[in-house]
């Protein structure tokens, strides 16, 4: 029987992997991941209005052009503003410049001394100015006014330096596990992207594949030949094992594709030095945040349990999908039955997303122990520091135990359902199978 089980697993796995659609789907996924990782370059490559510079015309009667332009541009850079600015000094007549505003998307700034307030200014545009540009201009003009005041106040250079130098602010967070809210936000976004999304995608794939395969064998009556040669237990096991192996392989492939996409991004960064340095800096910052947050330490502690929890959950969904598929005779019937399964998965998905918002929620903690949901919730709240390693261990044990129980009772239903071709109503069939079990 072991040989037959091995063969059935190989056959089932081959049916999924040795198809042109598997290859095409994986190539598309790889292309999409590379595209997502390099989306800014792709957008830039095709060009567009975003390349145009915002022109700022400065009519300066205070001789402050150098200060204005350097302060404005450094402010813009420090805020990470994506817009490019070009500041030009002009001596043209203001009325003439105003006439050209409609055609050219410009901002005209006038700077004039004022006897009472030291400095007066106008910001002239055809359309309302965007908030960020206005804030930058406002800050720069106010800073310019401070400069003018300082210069005319006969202060000593030391006094000026002390006045203009930035205040040293020390950031202190008393929560030792998560140093600050900012890093927690980054972690929660990362965890959702790395854990929840791919696993949600993989489980959906798993349940659909098992249903389609079992229904294919049932609807062609090939099931009768198969079951006359191998026991329903061996057949059931082969479907569960093959599907779980498939999603694990697909998951690993996704990791490889992500690394590839990232490597391509780095490679392209090497070609364009400036942005490469920017990205390297960003990654460095991100890495620093992750290191400071203690996530890696937590991950190191919990990884074996998390992996077991994932595997147990894959098996759980595979068992349940197999049982449901055995009771149906067509893919349409199976899709109806699959809906509650998908709803359970969705609950886990949303609860995991909400975990970082509703920190310390008892409800979320309870859900983290419930099999079929726990694999999405428990790792997230563990990494966010909202639960302990022991609690993660309990969640894993629950899932593993539930896996055995579900297989035990599921197999009974599977044995009855797999050769059931009755055309009576779907739910009636389920109840009949459960009763017979």
């Amino acid at each position, binding site marked *: *029987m072991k040989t037959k089980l091995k063969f059935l697993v190989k056959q089932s796995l081959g*049916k999924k992997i040795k198809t042109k659609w598997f290859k095409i789907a994986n190539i598309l996924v790889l292309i999409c991941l590379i595209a997502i990782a390099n989306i800014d370059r792709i957008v830039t490559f095709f060009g567009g209005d975003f390349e145009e510079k915002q022109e700022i015309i400065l009519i300066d009667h205070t001789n402050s052009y150098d200060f204005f332009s350097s302060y404005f541009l450094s402010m813009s850079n420090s805020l990470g503003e994506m817009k490019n600015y070009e500041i030009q000094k002009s001596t043209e007549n203001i009325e003439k410049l105003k006439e050209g505003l409609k055609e050219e998307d410009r901002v005209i700034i006038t700077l004039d001394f004022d006897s009472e307030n030291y400095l007066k200014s106008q910001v002239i545009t055809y359309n309302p100015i965007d908030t960020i540009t206005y804030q930058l201009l406002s800050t720069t003009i106010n800073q310019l006014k401070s400069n003018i005041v300082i210069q005319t106040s006969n202060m000593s250079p030391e006094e000026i330096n002390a006045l203009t130098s930035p205040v040293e602010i020390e950031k202190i967070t008393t929560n030792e596990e998560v140093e600050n809210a900012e890093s927690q936000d980054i972690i929660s976004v990362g965890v959702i992207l790395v854990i929840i999304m791919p696993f949600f995608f993989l489980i959906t794939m798993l349940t659909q594949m098992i249903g389609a395969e079992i229904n294919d064998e049932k609807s*062609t*009556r090939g099931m*009768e*030949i198969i079951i*006359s040669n191998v026991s329903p237990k061996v057949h059931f096991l082969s479907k569960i094992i093959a599907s779980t192996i498939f999603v694990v392989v697909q998951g690993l492939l996704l990791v490889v594709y992500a690394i590839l996409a990232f490597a391509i991004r780095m490679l392209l960064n090497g070609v364009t030095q400036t942005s490469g340095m920017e990205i390297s800096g960003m990654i460095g910052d991100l890495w620093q945040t992750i290191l400071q947050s203690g996530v890696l330490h937590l991950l190191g502690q919990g990884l074996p349990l998390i992996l077991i929890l994932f595997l147990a959950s894959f098996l759980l969904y595979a068992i349940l999908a197999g049982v449901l598929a055995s009771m149906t005779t067509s893919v349409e019937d199976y899709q109806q039955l699959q809906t509650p399964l998908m709803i359970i998965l969705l609950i886990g998905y949303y609860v995991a997303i909400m975990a970082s918002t509703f920190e310390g929620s008892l409800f979320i903690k309870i859900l983290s122990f419930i099999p079929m949901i726990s694999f999405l919730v428990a790792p997230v709240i563990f990494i966010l520091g909202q639960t302990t390693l022991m609690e993660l261990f309990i969640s894993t044990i629950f899932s593993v135990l539930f896996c055995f129980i579900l297989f035990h009772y599921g197999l009974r239903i599977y044995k009855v359902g797999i050769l059931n071709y009755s055309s009576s109503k779907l739910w009636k069939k389920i109840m009949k199978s459960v009763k017979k079990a």
Partner: protein
Amino acid sequence: MLTLEHVTKYYDQLKAVDDLSFEVKKGEIFGLLGVNGAGKTTTFRMIIGLLAKDNGTILLDGKPIDYNVTDKIGFLTEERSLLTKLTVKEQVIYYGVLKGMDEKNILNRLDYWLKRFHIEEYKNRKIKELSKGNQQKIQFITAIINDPELLILDEPFTGLDPINVEQFMEVIKELKEKNTIIIFSSHRMEHVELFCEKLVILVHGKSVLSGSLKEIKKSYQKKNIHIQADVDISKLKEIEGVIDVEKTAEDYIVKIKDQESISNVFNYIKKCQNVTEFRVEDPTLNEIFLEKVGVLYED
């Protein structure tokens, strides 16, 4: 030897098979007859182990049929049981390995059978691309690929033209020569008559007639007399012991109630002109079936 003793099967309140007993020896071909819903397929499924019986015993060579012996059994289902997305080669390997065979052996036998059925070119074609008849051939090959000791054929000739039916028959006869136990059902009574040495007629799951075909026919009193002569049908019908007279394109078929009535008909024919044929035949199986079941067998 395949032995069924007092086998009973219920579907809820419905008795699908009722106290069925028969045995089939090695090298025998056994027919299971009955109208739709008589319990033929249920019986096959119980033999192969797909359905659990509620009562009785089913033994192959004195042992219960379980997964230890199913490798020795070939089973052809009434409906197509092929996985249509697979190629012929993949399909036969799939079912062959499940019969405990190794791939090399399967491929050797597959090549032989494909050649035998003149469909070598379909080896790498997908099942769904084949015609119904060719799909049936592949299904038949999957049933016999393991050279079974027990071969169960549920409506094996469905979808086949007469030439292919002839091919199947040849193979089945060869398997019989190899001492295979063959049990089959067919809608075509002429196939049953050609093949079966023994049979059971099922009505609502219960055996109403069983035994060897020869004995059944012999024990059946009614006979048919084929006559070619210038006869008066009304006079023929008046003869004592004549049940009915049918006129076919070639001759007259006189149905008589027993052996003794033959001489009555013969005495009349002697007086007729242009007598070229007077032939006494056993009744057809279909007539016996009609007598026992109340309806014609086919459809």
